[in-house]
């Protein structure tokens, strides 16, 4: 019997039809620098009436929901919050951990992907770095809010004083203060350094107060070899140095819990577990922001493309798996080796009155990404991956809620068990910081170029299509 031979030509044609258009990749679809500058400047300077209405509404929301509620709580007392025996850490600390987690996005996207030369990062590094700075600014308010007597916050600062008070440098809470301060300062500088060439570009194309502002921020940048050398050198130092700082920040946040005697918190894997969760929520938040930027700012569909959602979606899927691994590790070993109290705590998490929070966490952090993000078509559909990214952050908030108030409410003595219910003040302050974050982002989007144009151009210059056999493949050269 003669064997049937499949004609080679047919197979070749089929693969040719499947070949994607290289111009769908930003790096392979270059435009003149002048045009890209114009697009970014137009996105930055064009404001509509609707924009100012939203900014005004957010400013009022921040004033009322955040500062109004906080001021009222300072005036009336901490009793306005739902934190009371046995749960003394509630929504304030949950939201604090949430924002610190979000702030990992910038460093991850900008520093780690820069170190590993992941080219898809180029157009959205600044958007992610801004998230870090504003996420930290929102998160850093919570230790002050939670303090109650906020007017004595300076007692945390080490300086010789007549009170004979000195911070306890053996406490994870003081380490937290140091770590967040370090991270906030360094991530703000890390946002600024790659911005210098772009504000110089904005300086050359603006007049009036904008010109004065950009001239000041550009530090006289002209693009000389010496200026590029020092900026590149500084960015490289930052990219390598800020990664361990990022790891230390969320590790120390986890030590706030893990170094206590609370059942369910004492764990040696809390550090990496928190970091993975932070990166998962941070990268998801970058997707959320990119979706909003793409559909609200002019010309952003050129810079932010489906390929970027695709790449970030894959990262989210990987980090969701890593998060599930740590969660399972933590759960299983507590279940096997934990004492009676720990087992009861786990049972209460899964079947108690607040079990829906626990299931919401698992559904959003595991089921949703695993069932959706394996699909390339879905990852490349911006609105679909936007919804997934929102759900993941809902899941990560539920995770922190499970770890903090739901765990504190069921400790060693059953007579001391209690349910925690967030009060209006706490919900108002939490929503207020969300409004503050969005407001700062909206204002920044009209003040600084959100797209690092020089990095995009550098990437486009280093990418070329190279013919290999029957097809063309992208190749990258080092221009640094």
């Amino acid at each position, binding site marked *: 019997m003669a064997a049937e031979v499949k004609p080679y030509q047919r197979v070749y044609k089929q693969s040719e039809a499947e070949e994607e258009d290289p111009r769908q990749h930003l790096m392979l679809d270059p435009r*003149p*620098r002048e045009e890209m*500058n114009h697009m970014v400047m137009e996105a930055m300077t064009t404001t509509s009436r609707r924009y100012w209405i939203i900014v005004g509404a957010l400013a009022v929301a921040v004033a009322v929901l955040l500062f109004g509620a906080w001021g009222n709580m300072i005036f009336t007392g901490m009793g306005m919050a739902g934190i009371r025996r046995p749960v003394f850490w509630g929504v304030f600390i949950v939201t604090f951990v949430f924002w610190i987690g979000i702030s990992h996005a910038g460093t991850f996207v900008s520093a780690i992907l820069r170190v590993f030369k992941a080219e898809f990062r180029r157009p959205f590094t600044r958007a992610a770095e801004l998230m870090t700075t504003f996420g930290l600014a929102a998160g850093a308010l919570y230790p002050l809010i939670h303090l109650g007597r906020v007017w004595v916050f300076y007692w945390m600062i*080490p300086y*010789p004083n007549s009170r*004979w*008070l*000195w911070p*306890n*440098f*053996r*406490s994870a809470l*003081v*380490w937290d203060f*140091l*770590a967040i301060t*370090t991270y906030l*300062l*360094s991530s703000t*500088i*890390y946002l600024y*350094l790659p911005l210098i*060439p772009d504000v*110089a*570009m904005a*300086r*050359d*194309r603006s007049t009036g107060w904008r010109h004065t502002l950009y*001239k000041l921020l*550009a*530090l*006289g*940048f*002209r*693009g*000389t*070899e*010496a*200026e*590029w*050398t*020092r*900026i*590149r*050198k*500084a960015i490289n*130092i*930052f990219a390598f*140095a*800020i990664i*361990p*700082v990022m790891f*230390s920040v969320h590790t*120390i946040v986890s030590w706030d819990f893990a170094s206590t005697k609370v059942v369910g918190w004492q764990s040696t894997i809390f550090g990496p577990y928190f970091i993975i969760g932070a990166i998962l929520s941070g990268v998801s938040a970058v997707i959320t922001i990119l979706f909003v930027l793409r559909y609200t700012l002019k010309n952003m569909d050129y810079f932010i493309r489906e390929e970027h959602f695709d790449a970030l979606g894959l990262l989210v899927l990987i980090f969701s798996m890593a998060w599930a691994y740590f969660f399972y590790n933590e759960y299983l070993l507590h279940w096997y080796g934990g004492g009676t109290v720990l087992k009861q705590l786990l049972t209460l998490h899964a079947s108690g009155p607040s079990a829906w929070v626990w299931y919401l966490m698992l559904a959003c952090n595991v089921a949703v990404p695993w069932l959706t993000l394996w699909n390339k078509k879905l990852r490349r559909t911006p609105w679909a991956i936007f919804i997934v990214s929102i759900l993941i952050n809902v899941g990560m908030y539920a995770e922190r809620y499970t770890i903090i108030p739901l765990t504190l409410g069921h400790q060693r003595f059953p007579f001391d068990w209690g349910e925690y219910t967030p009060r209006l003040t706490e919900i108002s302050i939490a929503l207020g910081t969300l409004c503050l974050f969005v407001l700062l982002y909206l204002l920044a989007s009209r003040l600084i170029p959100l797209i690092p144009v*020089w990095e995009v*151009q*550098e990437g486009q*210059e280093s990418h070329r299509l190279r013919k290999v056999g029957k097809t063309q493949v992208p190749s990258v050269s080092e*221009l*640094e």
Partner: protein
Amino acid sequence: MPEDPVHIALFEEDRIDHAAEALDRLRALGIRDKDMSVLSGVPYSDKILGRPMAWTRVPIIALAGAGVGFAASLALILIANRQYPLVVGGFPYVAIPTIIPVTFELTMLGLLISTFLGVFVEMISPTYGPKAYHPKISDGYIGIVFTCPPKLDQPMHAALTELGAELVHQSEVQP
């Protein structure tokens, strides 16, 4: 003696080869590397343009800052803990495991802040060599800024225009 006038030769962004060639021709005319400077909208390595290596003190300043941060952290922990002794749970005043987070954070803080200060100080410090600027640089043009004695005007002009340069004479434009 009056200084030689400053010129800028502008090349379009896709003409990096021509810019490198122009630098060679200017050298051949007797213009020294220290009298030339290349401006660009994206960073190019020294090798691409055949220029002497640009160097910076930023890494040294960063290391010095890290040292200051480390020393400050030790001062805070070791000296201050003796001045303000605080006994918690029977732990010693100073224990190595609890020192590490504080020294790490302050060392990194010193490193990162001094890196920025290094960039800041170098950016605002006076520089040697020809100073000029053209807004087209941020539009992706590659600019060669150089000083050229008037007697070389004609050969310089011929060499650069042949390579497609757009010349801005006696430029005094500052950003």
